[in-house]
């Protein structure tokens, strides 16, 4: 079981951070929110719609209102940067080519990559690929945008750019943002509200300051990056001395 009695409300128009140690099911939670997975039990309500009850047509209609930024960008490798951003517009709208060009250039300009429109995804750095993916995620002017580990593997400059963009997109376009990450420092810059998930439950929630002030050992371990604590440093293993003296057996 990954989640047990998990309950959380994500407010409209705010940046909400979902944090937690690796392997705690953050990405799984995103997959549940977007119905890439169905829960065995419980309810998930997005923008007033109960996900489990949606037909594929209604689910796709809902997904058009959601932008998602995948961990690795997930750009379509056979299309140029321009075509990647144009992809959802070409699929879902009847806009004229000149209007599509206009929209795509506007979105690329917003992430600072108008000049990279003709490049192919393989020619982009990790940070650039993520910004293109962000431009694509906002191409359809979504109401909700979901970021899956947007800061992983980025250099400090690219990370700063992404942090700024997350905040800007939210404020300028009035989007509700969900950021899943374990970068405590970065999240404290952008998040209005945070949930710390551990052991399948919400361990703490509130503003970044609230979380820092929470006395719980787990929260303190996570916020301060301590190697050992309620989340143990060692993966469960038999007794160290016994195993060392136990001869050649592997187990």
């Amino acid at each position, binding site marked *: 079981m990954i989640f047990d009695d998990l309950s959380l409300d994500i407010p409209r128009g705010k940046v909400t951070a979902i944090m937690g140690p690796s392997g705690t099911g953050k990405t799984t939670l995103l997959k549940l929110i977007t119905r*890439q997975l169905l829960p065995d039990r419980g309810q998930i309500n997005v923008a007033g719609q109960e996900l489990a009850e949606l037909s594929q047509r209604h689910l*796709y209609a809902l*997904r058009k209102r959601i932008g998602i930024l995948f*961990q690795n960008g*997930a750009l379509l490798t056979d299309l140029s940067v321009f075509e990647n951003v144009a992809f*959802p517009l070409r*699929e879902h709208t009847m806009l004229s080519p000149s209007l599509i060009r206009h929209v795509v250039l506007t979105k690329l300009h917003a992430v600072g990559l108008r000049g990279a429109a003709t490049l192919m995804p393989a020619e982009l750095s990790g940070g650039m690929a993520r910004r293109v993916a962000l431009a*694509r995620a906002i191409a359809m002017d979504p109401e909700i945008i979901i970021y899956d580990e947007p800061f992983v593997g980025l250099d400090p400059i690219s990370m700063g750019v992404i942090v700024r963009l997350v905040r800007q997109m939210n404020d300028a376009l009035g989007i509700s943002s969900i950021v899943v990450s374990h970068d405590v420092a970065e999240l404290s810059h952008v998040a209005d509200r945070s949930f710390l998930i551990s052991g399948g439950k919400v361990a703490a929630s509130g503003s970044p300051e609230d979380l820092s002030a929470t006395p719980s050992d787990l929260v303190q371990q996570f916020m301060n990056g301590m190697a050992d604590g309620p989340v143990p440093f060692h993966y469960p293993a038999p007794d160290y001395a016994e195993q060392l003296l136990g001869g050649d057996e592997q187990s």
Partner: protein
Amino acid sequence: MLRDLWGNAEEFLRAFGALQLFFLRLLASIPRVLANRFRLVIYQVYNAGALSLVIILVCGFFVGAVLGLQGYRNLAQFGSEDALGAVVALALIQELGPVVSALLFAGRAGTALASEIGLMRATDQLSAMEMMAVDPIRRVVVPRFLGGVVAMPLLSAIFIMIGIFGAYLVGVGLYGVDLGAFWGQMQDTVVNSDIYESFIKAFVFGVAASLLAVWEGYSAIPTAEGVGRATTRTVVITSIVVLILDFIITAFAVN
């Protein structure tokens, strides 16, 4: 051991059932893909067909040339080397053209399809499409499937023609078989039903090879190892399935 066997059988049946469901889903999407995404299909015909031309032309030529050499040697024992054209044409049209093209197609285009779709799965591109409310079956799978289905009979026809040309060069050019007899006997012997049989084989193999390739890619485990395994399985399973189907179609054609 019995339990292992049962486990394997169960796994096979489950995979076979999933493949059938996948095929039905794919068939149901074809009309809309043809109506809305025709250009993607054309591109995939180019991708699977035109890009396989070199291997088909080279292999077809040498298979035909070898048939010419062997056919001449064997026929000459009975003094009937004039029948070379007929023998070569029948062998290529009924059997070698569709079967060898399908095996080459599995090696060239099938592996490319499986690894491409598998990598799209591994790099979240398929999930990204689903999240953008675009059905990857329609956008990615069906155009590639149709591309293969259209390309296979064309490749087989080209293989047969270039094979006959190879046999002609060897038979007529090298061994001096009578030019008129070579073509004349071929014309007298090959009948329309041979051509139909050849086309049906190429079409069925095209469906099987393309379906298995897109299925293996689509259901690949999204890791480097998983994609590699899917690519290998594509060639192995397609080869086996093509040869079994070949037996079945030939058995029907002979009766």
